[in-house]
């Protein structure tokens, strides 16, 4: 029974990844312009013969179905092809940059969680909560690049507390991470707080208080776990903000990373890299959803978790 569910689950994950890969393949076949031209740039010396030979190397002279099959089979073997621009295997490109982005994402997530928890759990009293929720609203509504620029001009240019750019050291991580963290913290904080407030209205909270439970015990032993459930459904959205934010933040703060690679690949029409990143993201999200589901089961004994993580909750 359980075993069958796991199998079904894995199948589902595969379907999603496969779908993403196929979508990427088809969609990028629609890209206007001859990939080879794009790849070469305008090179006077690139004779038609040369282009033809390159096309052959890339298998672009094959009929679509053939290309598709070989594309998939290569994916299965973990071969994402070679970048037009960087002249490196896409896996290497992603591999080289993944570290920076993971570092950034992890830092952002940690910050976001910390801020959200402080805002939701520690802050008490209607007035204080009101202020917090306004701040959250602002954080949510401000475009990340705008936040980034403000932080830059205040803390880097103005006060000079943090370096303006670069990937080196914790110092250089603070502002970029904060830029991504703030909006995430905003949403997370809201969901947590409403979750807590809802839980406090529940009869079981009254029962707990009727046993003499104080606020701390009430939150830690009871309501926080309930608030965590809606917060969990945000996981997909959050990871999204982390990756999407990376694209902008890495360019604002001149950090290396996947975001930069993605952006460059898109502006340069570096199709293999774009494809690679699409598939990579799909895999990441499938895994995230899996983790979320498991977390649901861990937290809530009652229900089987909803599958797709919810995004854009405001």
């Amino acid at each position, binding site marked *: 029974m359980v075993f069958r569910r796991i199998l079904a689950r894995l199948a589902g994950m595969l379907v999603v990844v496969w779908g993403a890969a196929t979508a990427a393949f088809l969609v990028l076949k629609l890209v206007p312009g001859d990939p080879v031209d794009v790849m070469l740039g305008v090179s006077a010396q690139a004779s038609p013969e040369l282009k033809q030979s390159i096309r052959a190397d890339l298998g672009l002279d094959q009929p679509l179905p053939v290309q598709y099959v070989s594309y998939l089979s290569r994916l299965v073997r973990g071969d994402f092809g070679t970048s037009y621009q960087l002249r490196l295997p896409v896996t290497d490109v992603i591999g080289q940059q993944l570290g920076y982005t993971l570092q950034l994402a992890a830092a952002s997530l940690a910050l976001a969680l910390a801020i959200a928890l402080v805002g939701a759990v520690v802050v008490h009293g209607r007035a204080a909560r009101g202020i917090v929720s306004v701040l959250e609203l602002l954080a949510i509504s401000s475009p990340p690049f705008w936040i980034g620029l403000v932080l830059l001009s205040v803390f880097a240019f103005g006060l000079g507390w943090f370096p303006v750019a670069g990937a080196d050291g914790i110092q250089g991580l603070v502002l970029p991470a904060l830029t991504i963290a703030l909006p995430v913290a905003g949403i997370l904080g809201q969901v947590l707080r409403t979750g807590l407030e809802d839980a406090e209205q529940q*009869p079981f909270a*009254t*029962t*707990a208080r*009727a046993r003499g439970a104080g606020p701390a015990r009430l939150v830690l*032993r009871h309501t926080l776990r309930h608030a965590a459930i809606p917060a969990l459904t945000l996981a997909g959205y959050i990871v999204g903000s982390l990756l999407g934010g990376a694209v902008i933040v890495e360019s604002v703060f001149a950090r290396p990373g996947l975001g930069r690679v993605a952006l460059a690949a898109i502006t340069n029409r570096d199709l293999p890299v774009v494809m690679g990143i699409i598939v990579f993201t799909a895999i990441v999200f499938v895994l995230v959803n899996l983790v979320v589901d498991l977390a649901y089961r861990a937290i*809530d004994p009652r229900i089987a978790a909803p599958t797709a993580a919810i995004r854009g909750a405001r």
Partner: protein
Amino acid sequence: MTDAHVLVRAAGLTVRFGSTVVVDSVSLSLAAGECLAIVGESGSGKTLTARALLGLLPDGAVLSADELLIDGADVRRNSEADWRRIRGARVGLVSQDALVSLDPLRRVGREVAEVLEIHGDPVSGHRMPWAALDETVTTQLGRVAMPEPEERARQYPHELSGGLRQRALIASALAGKPGVLIADEPTTALDVTVQAQVLDLLSGLRDDGLGIIVISHDLAVVAGIADRVAVMRSGRIVEVGATVEVLSNPRHPYTRMLLAAAPRLPDASFPESSFPEPVEGSRPSTSSGGDPVLRATGLGRDFRRPDGGVRSAVDDVSFDVLPAAAIGIVGESGSGKTTLARLLLGFDAPDRGSVTLDGQPWSGITEGRRRSRRGDIQYISQDPLGSFDPRYTVSRIVAEGLRGGSRLSSRTRAARIRTLLDSVGLDASLAGRRPHELSGGQRQRVAIARAIASEPRILVCDEPVSALDVSIQATIIDLLAGLRRDLGVALVFVSHDLAVVATLCDDVLVMRDGRVVESGAIGEVFAHPRHPFTRALVDAVPRMP
């Protein structure tokens, strides 16, 4: 009042929200081994009164009292911390639905243990070691007659039946050995049989010296266990006294109204002869002749269980409904009452057997062919609000029920709607209101108006009054009875409440696990139940002296 030492004494207890007074200078007292019942309808302030004794009033509520003693200590100046020392240790709380009153994410055992973690050992007051905790939890669960306490302690609330859940809740409230237990509607969510058991449990505890304050909307329920009854209405205690006294000769008109309104089971004093001897398996039907409006034959409906097995929600049910007859379908939750109703209404298709309406096949035909005849059989649900489109006004809702309502001229339609509203006792001025602006009773009346708009031959009512206060309940029942009399519409009345069915119906089907275990004329069945389950059911119904 007994001379035993007084656990709670309150005088001039008042709760305000801003300028509005919701509990108005209430005075009460409770002694050890005594059970005080506070009875009143929704909004009477009974719950707030109880919460005041725990210092658990909602935000914005202001408490004042001339005297408020708990275990002899004046608690009027209590800080939140002081209250916390009282809660659980001196006063325990059991509230309505244990499914939500126990933290659904924590194991039952942990919930029971929590009070001990907070207050320590009830005797010594010291922190309790884990082992001791578990042990105490088990004994506590045992004390409320919980089978296999060890296993139960490791289960989650949703894994327990309603009755066991309520026991667990009581156990968690008593673990701190409080002198006072406040039980707020402790049995409302339970089936009658279970209700009886829980009430027994409570009275047992009372006999062991526990002081209990029971809060209920149902006089009958408290009649059994309460030594004294306080009747509350709009924040005030209108009458208080020994239970027998209050119930047998109520002084205050409101109490009389409540008593009058409360439906009762006819006791065995019926003259036997007035019933025809029912033959086993014969189709129950009312004496008034004519072909049946609705005929169910060998109905069965199966559902797939999550584990893949098959459960028959309804199995081999047959009966007739003659014109203007009123037949009750009683049973506990999960007995298949509602599924049966849905089969009769053609909302759901039977896996076995058939339904005919006016002799024409009603089941096993396409919805298209059913549609034109739907006006003949109408439905009244327990949740009228849910059955209204939130955007619609009352008149639009009722208009939807009119046959060919679209074809009528707006004037005639308006006229029809007015008469319909009038016939269900609603003021025409409500026609413009939206559902959420109506009271529960008004909503049910609107639902009825919509149902009778198409001049149906038969009304299927699923728990139509369960969610209503007794006084309202009575009026709705009268309304339905009146409609049956005046319009000659037949009633199929699904309810868990035998008393209600008894007041309204002539015949009854008793269902259990999807099967009809007994059927026949009300008086016969309830006076001389044949099937043991029916007997249990009847015995469990709380009766007033």
